[in-house]
């Protein structure tokens, strides 16, 4: 093996400082989430804030750690719009969940 030289790939836009910044950013956002849990924020506000922060964290991981920001845009267009669409479709069931407690016979 190693008769041929190693392939060198370099992406000038991303380096170690970027990775550390993203990592610190993720830790800070996680800290904010834990703080929200400590403050016992009302459920609906808590859920909105947590999902919002998680989507931001997820986007940071996908863009920088998973390198999608530096891939062709066509890759993003192939993978993500349908994923987001399918996830949003699952929201349809949640209306039904709110109906169940009202339908339960009193015990």
């Amino acid at each position, binding site marked *: 093996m190693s008769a041929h030289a190693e392939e*060198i790939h370099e992406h000038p836009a991303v380096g170690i400082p970027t*990775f550390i910044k993203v990592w610190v950013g993720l830790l800070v956002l996680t800290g904010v*989430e834990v703080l929200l849990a400590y403050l016992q924020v009302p459920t609906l506000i*808590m859920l909105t804030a947590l999902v919002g922060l998680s989507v931001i964290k997820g986007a940071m991981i996908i863009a920088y750690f998973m390198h999608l920001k530096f891939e062709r845009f066509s890759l993003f267009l192939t993978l993500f719009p349908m994923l987001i669409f399918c996830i949003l479709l*699952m929201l349809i069931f949640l209306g039904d969940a709110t109906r169940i407690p009202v339908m339960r016979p009193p015990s």
Partner: protein
Amino acid sequence: MSSQATATATAWEGGRSPYATNSKKFGMWLFIISDALTFSALLFAYTYSRVSNPEWPKPFEFTPAIIFSSVMTFALLSSSLTMVMAVHSMNKGDRAAAGKWIIATMIAGATFVGLHMTEWLKLINEEHVTPFQNPWGVPLFGATFFSITGLHMTHVVIGIIYLGIICQAVFRGKFKAEDVEVAGLYWHFVDLVWMFVFPLVYLMSARV
């Protein structure tokens, strides 16, 4: 179409890959998207169960349970950083450094699994929560909690084995940078899933 025509065809006519990426990486992306849908469905099932049960328990005390799971989150986030460093070293052609970073990633992943198992055993043995029953009278809590965290932990364990295979190959001079990058994609995905499991399953059920 002749091979010459293939070479000159535009990307969308079947010439070069329209994504300018190798097929291993594209394959891993497709797997990640389908696995993301699996986890989304589980998290929606959890949310559905929770909304339909107003008496849903809040079993996680801020200290120690939430602090404990925050440390687990820290271990997993840090493992993503070390994995990125491994891919970076491999892209520069430094196999020794890449191998060491992969080992660091595996250690952080194993720490996560160890902490998680400790937490599970505490819930099962001390608080008597199982997938089928718990002291709070909402069996769905155990069912959804163990399904979601269990499937995630399975992914982490598979990831550690996957990285182990990649790691020994890197040290022996086999495999290319792209193979490490594809393993990295899988590992970051496992981290990504935890970024949704941790707030929805743990933080939403925290009590101070």
